[in-house]
């Protein structure tokens, strides 16, 4: 129950951060992808299932407000959660590099996919311009914010773990 509420609240907060707060403080015309930070961190800290559920709901929110059909972002973010969850096995809480690598990697994949469906399908062939003006700045900004946000999420995770102790249903 507690886990469910924490997941819901963090998805909501991160969605608002990404779509409203960081819209106001853009750097170099880009906003960081906060939801990717949330999904990667959750998956690597808490495992595949939590990562997938978080990813699914994050993507669903994006679908509702920003895309024409439901399900696309939900599927993509859910996959991010699934894949990042594999790294849960080699992750320990002092490891600062792995989550950041995953955040950066996910954002790169996200950028490439968005280029494929938003750029290439509309006949925009200047891939390197997209890479330079959108994909790379977004990765840099996302990883930088991820560095801070990951710590916050880790604190939340540790707080959750305190209550989970002795409970068998934690994976």
């Amino acid at each position, binding site marked *: 129950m507690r886990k469910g509420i924490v997941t819901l609240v963090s998805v909501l907060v991160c969605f608002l951060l990404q779509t409203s707060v960081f819209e*106001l403080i853009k750097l170099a015309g880009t906003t960081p992808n906060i939801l990717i930070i949330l999904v990667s961190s959750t998956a690597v800290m808490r495992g595949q299932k939590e990562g997938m559920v978080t990813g699914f709901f994050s993507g669903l929110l994006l679908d509702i*407000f920003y895309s024409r059909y439901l399900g696309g972002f939900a599927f993509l973010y859910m996959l991010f959660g699934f894949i990042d969850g594999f790294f849960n096995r080699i992750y320990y809480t002092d490891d600062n590099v792995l989550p950041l690598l995953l955040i950066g990697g996910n954002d790169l994949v996200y950028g490439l996919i968005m280029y494929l469906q*938003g750029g290439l399908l509309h006949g925009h062939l200047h891939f390197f311009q997209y890479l330079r003006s959108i994909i790379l700045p*977004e990765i840099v900004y996302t990883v930088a914010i991820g560095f801070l946000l990951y710590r916050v999420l880790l604190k939340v995770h540790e707080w959750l773990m305190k209550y989970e102790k002795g409970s068998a249903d934690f994976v």
Partner: protein
Amino acid sequence: MKYRRKFEFSPKLLLIFLTVVCALLLTVSVMFRDVAKPFTNVVGMVIIPMQNGINRVGGWAGDTFGDFKSLKELRQENEELKAEIEKLNEANKRLNGSKEELAQAENLLDLKDNYKDYNTIGARVISKGSGNWYQTLVINKGTKDGIKKDMNVLADGGLAGIITDVGINYAKVRTIIDDDSSVSAMSEKSRNLCVVKGNSESIKENGMIDVKYISKDAEMHEGERLTTSHISSKYVPGLLIGNIKNIAMDPSNLTQSAVVVPEVDFEHIEKVLVITDLKIVPSDSDSAD
């Protein structure tokens, strides 16, 4: 949590389950647009007030920092504004005279319908896409304020886009710079028809979008203003789009193409006006857009 102990989802099973859910959502939302409406409205009820609030705070913070402008700057600005008011007053008087004349001429020619004033509702842009890839806007007015699908949206005195989706308290706007957008347009002086197509790539590069299908005999001039045309099926006529540039013959020699600099500054769009008059055309007519 207890039931979980009896039946534990393995990650792979959950993956399959959620994939099926996504596929179902996709199919349902492609085939029946309005089935998900109640659900999305509930989510909108929760999220939109929060986004609204954050934007208010952001706007307030911007204003507060703006308050610390130096007195000297303000004085100078005051001077400039006064000079401008003078100029505008003068122009206003002149235009009022012309307006009378125009009204008389219109009456004579029975043209009144062409220049009617549209009814508008003001709205605030509460978010611009979900990051860096989209040219969609979300505004803070919805069905409860009388917003309907296909209403035209203005900003800075020019055409910004069209409403594509409405919730109870929000609406999505597809801007004219979006790759999927195309607007039937007309040059103001030479009255030639063309189509303005969004181009998300060139708007970032040099702030222009494409103009296509200009007749090869058309005599458009550089810098001429483009407005929405009278034959568009979704856009009401006479809305300013922008100034045309770089007119050139297509390789096919059948049509000409050009680019247009939109009147609206899409990077800094904050407030919009929604035109509540809908263009009404017979449902079986061909679309010029």
